[in-house]
């Protein structure tokens, strides 16, 4: 385990601490993944920089149609947030499926993203939401699409020993837009997913105006089924069309045989099932809602 546990009072102080330790310190938020990694010898950092006391990182807010989520926000807070439930329900569903209450009370959504595992439930929903992350480095802050954070399984392009992600943002779902999240796992709670899928659909009248489908873990990072989603745009989302889209998504996904998760063949077949179900629910929810509220 680590030799130092530090509490910066600001993002700037956190970055100073990281720099001062020359790559041997790293950011910790909830630590629900990090503590285990450290115990298993997979986290070489000698100092932990705990961001939980920095004021002003615990918000879930909407400004000008964009929802902002701070780095301290836990999965539990996202799942319970009335704003998220009404304007980005797919993310509430995803975060609510992580672990159990104890994990959700401590683990943060941003931390889940930084952990960069392809099955991370919150991240899958963020991909579907086309989210961006704000990276804070010594030289300044910048926004970057979430897909740019993934360098490989468990590898974030943002080095948690040199920088931190301060917030996420994505467009709140508006009129005619809704999402849904589906998950397959070996038991019904307290378990990592075999497969998860998030779909967001926007309708204009009876035609699909926009669609995004994110799936995990079928690749080294959350997988965006771009071709499949594209097939839906401009179409009327009837059952047969959705089934067809799900098939294309399944064809594009390349899961591997896994001792604990199941065979590639099964997982590929389940991509089709989950995508079909997520799309169907998203379409139903999108066509149901009239005004500002979307309820998947």
């Amino acid at each position, binding site marked *: 385990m680590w030799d130092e546990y530090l509490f910066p009072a600001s993002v700037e102080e956190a970055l100073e601490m990281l720099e001062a330790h020359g790559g041997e310190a790293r950011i910790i938020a909830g630590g629900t993944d990090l503590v285990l990694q450290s115990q298993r010898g997979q986290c070489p950092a000698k*100092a932990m920089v705990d961001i939980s006391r920095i004021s002003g990182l615990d918000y879930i807010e909407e400004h000008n149609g964009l929802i902002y989520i701070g780095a301290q926000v836990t999965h539990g807070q996202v799942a319970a947030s009335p704003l998220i439930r009404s304007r980005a329900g797919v993310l509430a569903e995803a975060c609510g499926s992580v672990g159990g*209450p104890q994990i959700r009370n401590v683990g943060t959504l941003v931390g889940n993203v930084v952990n960069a595992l392809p099955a991370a439930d919150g991240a899958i929903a963020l991909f579907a939401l086309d989210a961006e992350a704000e990276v804070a480095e010594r030289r300044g802050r910048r926004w970057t699409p979430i897909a740019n954070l993934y360098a490989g399984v468990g590898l974030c392009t943002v080095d948690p020993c040199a920088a931190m992600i301060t917030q996420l943002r994505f467009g709140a779902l508006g009129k005619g837009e809704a999402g849904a999240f589906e998950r397959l796992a070996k038991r019904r*709670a*307290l378990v990592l997913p075999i497969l998860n899928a998030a779909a967001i659909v926007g309708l204009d009248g009876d035609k699909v105006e926009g669609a995004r489908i994110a799936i995990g873990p079928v690749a080294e990072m959350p997988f965006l089924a771009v071709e499949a989603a594209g097939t839906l745009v401009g179409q009327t989302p009837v059952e047969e069309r959705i089934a067809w889209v799900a098939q294309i998504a399944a064809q594009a996904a390349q899961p591997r045989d896994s001792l604990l998760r199941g065979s590639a063949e099964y997982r590929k077949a389940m991509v089709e099932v989950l995508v079909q179900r997520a799309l169907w629910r998203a379409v139903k929810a999108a066509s149901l809602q009239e005004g500002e509220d979307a309820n998947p």
Partner: protein
Amino acid sequence: MPTLKMTLNGQEVSVDVEPGDLLAYVLRDKLGLIGTKISCGEGECGACTVLVDGKSVDSCIYPALKAQGREVVTIEGLGEDSRLDPIQQAFIDRTAPQCGYCIPGMVISAKALLDETPHPTRKEIEEGISGNLCRCTGYYQIIEAIELARERLAGKGGRG
């Protein structure tokens, strides 16, 4: 060695800890509070559940120093010498404890649930203990105990 200062079961407590210590081990080995149990060691079973600022956490993967300045409640903080907390009493009355190893974690999770949601539905009760494993009971009598605690606390118009 850094010092951890927290409000533990209502008392101000100060204890020297290693930077890498985890809260469950500090509670058990340094503070002598053996009520919090270690079972899976990876935040996967809830036997180690304690409250930090009212929220249930798996203390076996919670860095001890993270509790700096926080309010921590363990099973020892419930009830008094002469009287059990209504949740604890309900667990006895519904024959919930079998081997008892999961029970402190279950009681704390139940407390977190009832503090936040005084009138939980059965589904909410199940969600509230979905992070707590038990190998003895099949959970039914634990659910019944929480339902009984809910009724009794509602009847009293609050805790106490």
